[in-house]
Structures are given as structure tokens and as C-alpha cells.
């Protein structure tokens, strides 16, 4: 690799080199506790997916260009140039990672491999080796906002279709899906699809919430792609909308990474404190149930049901109890998986993997631990508030013909509401 190219890639690392990253790169003891924490390594036994190994590839470049020992005696310190072989290895191990951070949870030093891999993705993008599909999805999202006038009418037409279904569902001809409503208390940020709009709209309607729907989807493929600037701009679309409309809170739909981006990353990326709260839709629904703002039929679901903590909502988002309380409010036979909450196994569908066709076989194989957990509960329904998790578990379900139904949590709430339909 030419010097100029190496300088570009090491420059990327230098830009990412916070004290935190340096510490992660310096202190790994190679104890390999992370091997038993990673669903991908456990399912495949492939060294490529060992968390410490994934980080080691970045560490090798770091040693060569950021430590004197590695610079002068590279062979002794396992220091390497970012050559094509290393970048190919890095691509496979990095874009396969779901960013679930279960390895960090068990690491004695809490090394955040996903954080290290965010530097890896930046290097790969600078080398022209970013994942093409994730990049395309990020660009498509920005295309909609950069040329909003071109897309505005079809987006609103789509909302009108959903509004028609809302009127039927609620039996209220005045039920509406408000958009661009100044003075609304809540800006709800859905996914691009109707499935994440209709249940929330019915719940907001029932609760009498003064809400408005974002013109933009919450999904953020810039984050999965690993381009922080694109990821910020994608989130800016609805954060700017929230500021313009003067809402009191932004409520993110049942999507794991979108919640984490909005709640934990966007302020740091934009350098501005949000003038509103950010909450996950399940926090809001749980509050509505407990405050009596929506009424549910207890025991609406009698089949055994379990709950999967999406990594970005649970372990990395801190939301554990509200979804369980919601499920218990509508179901008579709730069976938690073991382990659960912060120790929950990743299902294997995160990190944008469900969009990457060439990873499908690997992705489904990596769901082995989740499959064991699901089977052990004997549940017939799995509720989970993340689109990627649901797609993965539906894939596992289809592959093995388990006959299990995978549902968003808010669909359970909708099923348990007394609506004319």
C-alpha cells in the first residue's frame, strides 16, 4: 500500500483516537472471556468473529503507527500495515458485528469492541471498502431529505393511506395522523413503513395525546454503515423538525438502533443539547397504561409469550421493565428467557445485517443461542421492540418451521384495546 494511502487510513484512526479508544487498544489482556459472550463466535467457532480478534486488527495498525515499540520492532509487537489482507479481514469481522456489546458486558476491563469497530468502519470507508448496501440505504435516506419537495407528496399520501386505516380501526371518522403540527407535545418518529405508524397512532388517539408524526423515518443506516457525519445528518432530519415544531418530546418507534442514536449519540454528534426529551415508545405506552390513559383487556393473550430484549433497547438502552410490564398487562402466561435483560443473548439481526444479502446464511446460523433460549421458554409468541430483531427471529422461525409468531410489543397493546376495528 502506498504511503499516501497509509497516511489517509492512519489519519482516520488519529481523528478517532480519544483517550477512551486508546485505553481500549492498550489494555486487552487477551483473557478471551469475550469468546463465550459473543453469539457469533459461540455459533461458528470462527476466530474471525472473536471480539478480541476483531479489535486486534485495529490494534495492529495502532501499534505500528501510534507506538514506538511497534514502529521500530513490528514483528515483536505484532504491528502491521493496513494492507489489503488486513482490510479484507477487517471488513469481514467488522460488518458482521451486530454491535450488541455483550462482549463488553463480560469483559473484565469493559472494552467496548463496538466502539473500536466504529474506528474500523471509518477506516474501511476511507479505503473505499465500506459495505455497499448499508451505504446505499444511508444515501437513500439523505436523498429524501435533501430533495424533500420531490418526495413530500408521496410521503404524505402514504400517511393518508394509514390514516384511512386508523379511522376504520378506531371507528372515529375524525381520527387523524397529524403531520407538521406546531405546538404538538410529541413528535413520533416511526419507520418508513405503515406497520410502525398505525398501532402508535391508535394508541396516541386513545390516550388523547397531542402528537404529530415525523415526515422522516427513524432508521439510521448511516450509523450501521459507520459514517458518523451521515448518521448525524439522518438523525438531524427529525431532530430539526422537533425543534421547528417546538415539541416537548421526541418518541422513537420500536427500533433499537434508532432509539440509541436519538437518545445517546445525537447530542454528542451535533454538539447541541436537545431542547426536548427523547423516549422510546414503550416507555410512553407503559406510562399510559399505568396512568389509565389507555384501557386494555387483561388476559387478552393466553398463549405462552416471551420477550426478547433488543440489545440497543435493553443492554445498551437501559429499558428492561417497561416492555415486560406491558406484556404482563395483556398476557396471562409470560415466560422470560434465560438469561435476560443486560445478559440477554443477541438474536443476530442487528448491525444492519438483515439488509446484507451475502450475510444471510451466517446471520441465521449466528442465532443459535437465541433459538435455544426461545425454545426453552415454550412460548408461541415472541414480542420484541426492534425491527431488525423481529426480522431475524422471523427468519429463524421460517427456517426451522417453529410456528411461532413474532410481534412488535405495541401490536399486542393494539390487540388488547377495545376498538371497533
Amino acid at each position, binding site marked *: 500500500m502506498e504511503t499516501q494511502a497509509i497516511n489517509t487510513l492512519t489519519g482516520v484512526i488519529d481523528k478517532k483516537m480519544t483517550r477512551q479508544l486508546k485505553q481500549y487498544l492498550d489494555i486487552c489482556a487477551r483473557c478471551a472471556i469475550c469468546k463465550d459472550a459473543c453469539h457469533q463466535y459461540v455459533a461458528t467457532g470462527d476466530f474471525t468473529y472473536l471480539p478480541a480478534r476483531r479489535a486486534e486488527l485495529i490494534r495492529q495498525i495502532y501499534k505500528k503507527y501510534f507506538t514506538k515499540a511497534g514502529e521500530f520492532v513490528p514483528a515483536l509487537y505484532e504491528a502491521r500495515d493496513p494492507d489489503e489482507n488486513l482490510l479484507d479481514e477487517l471488513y469481514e469481522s467488522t460488518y458482521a458485528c451486530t454491535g450488541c456489546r455483550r462482549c463488553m458486558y463480560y469483559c473484565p476491563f469493559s472494552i467496548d469492541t463496538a466502539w473500536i469497530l466504529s474506528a474500523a468502519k471509518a477506516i474501511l470507508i476511507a479505503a473505499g471498502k465500506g459495505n455497499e448496501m448499508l451505504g446505499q440505504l444511508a444515501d*437513500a435516506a439523505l436523498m429524501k431529505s435533501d430533495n424533500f419537495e420531490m*418526495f413530500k407528496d*408521496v410521503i404524505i399520501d402514504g400517511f393518508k*393511506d394509514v390514516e384511512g386505516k386508523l379511522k376504520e380501526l378506531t371507528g372515529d371518522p375524525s381520527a387523524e395522523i397529524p403531520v407538521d403540527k406546531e405546538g404538538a407535545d410529541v413528535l413520533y418518529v416511526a419507520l*418508513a413503513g*405503515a406497520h410502525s405508524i398505525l398501532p402508535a397512532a391508535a394508541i396516541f388517539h386513545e390516550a388523547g395525546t397531542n402528537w404529530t408524526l415525523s415526515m422522516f*423515518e427513524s432508521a439510521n443506516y448511516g450509523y450501521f454503515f459507520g459514517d458518523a457525519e451521515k448518521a448525524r445528518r439522518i438523525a438531524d432530519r427529525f431532530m430539526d423538525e422537533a425543534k421547528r415544531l417546538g415539541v416537548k418530546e421526541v418518541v422513537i418507534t420500536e427500533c433499537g438502533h434508532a432509539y440509541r442514536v436519538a437518545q445517546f449519540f445525537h447530542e454528542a454528534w451535533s454538539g447541541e443539547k436537545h431542547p426536548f426529551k427523547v423516549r422510546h415508545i414503550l416507555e410512553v405506552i407503559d406510562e399510559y397504561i399505568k396512568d389509565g390513559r389507555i384501557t386494555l383487556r387483561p388476559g387478552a393473550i393466553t398463549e405462552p409469550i416471551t420477550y426478547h430484549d433488543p440489545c440497543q433497547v435493553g443492554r445498551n438502552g437501559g429499558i428492561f421493565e417497561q416492555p415486560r410490564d406491558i406484556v404482563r398487562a395483556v398476557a396471562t402466561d409470560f415466560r422470560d428467557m434465560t438469561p435476560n435483560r443486560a445478559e440477554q443473548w443477541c438474536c443476530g439481526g442487528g448491525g444492519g445485517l438483515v*439488509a446484507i*444479502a451475502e450475510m444471510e446464511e451466517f446471520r441465521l446460523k449466528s442465532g443459535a443461542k437465541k433459538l435455544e433460549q426461545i425454545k426453552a421458554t415454550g412460548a408461541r409468541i415472541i414480542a420484541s421492540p426492534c425491527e431488525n430483531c423481529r426480522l431475524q427471529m422471523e427468519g429463524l422461525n421460517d427456517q426451522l418451521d417453529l410456528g411461532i409468531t413474532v410481534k412488535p410489543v405495541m401490536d399486542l397493546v393494539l390487540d388488547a384495546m377495545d376498538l371497533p376495528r
Partner: protein
Amino acid sequence: MSEDIKVDLDLDLKGLLCPMPMVKVSQRIGDVPVGGVIRAVATDPGAMADIPAWAKSTGNEVLSAGKEGDEYVFLVKRVK
């Protein structure tokens, strides 16, 4: 007009939730030759913005996009 266009690949995207219709079109566009056309049928209204946005950002072309009953039908031409 769409009846006059030769379709090289039919994609049934019914039941898929956004952004998966866009993902599937992107995954399969390489299966038709440059100049070839995919006819994609989706049921999620989000596809009406997603697929044209993907096409515009990747340099491909949506020849037509419209609603037929409860379905959204797209003719997408591979340009490069």
C-alpha cells in the same frame, strides 16, 4: 405505457415492511443487464418514497411508480 416495456425480472415484495422492499430491489438490480427493467410490487406505502430515493441516489431510474388497488407497482431500470 408500462405494458410496452419489457420486464427482465419480476419481484414480489408484498408483505415486506420498509425498508426491505428497497433493500430487495437493490440486492436484485445486479441480476438484470444494464438497461434491463425490474417490475417490483410492494404493499408498504413507504416504498413509494424509498424506492425512488434509492434509485436517484444510486443513479438508476424509476420508469413508473403507482398505486394499483392496495399494491404499489414500480418499474425500475438499471442504468449502470
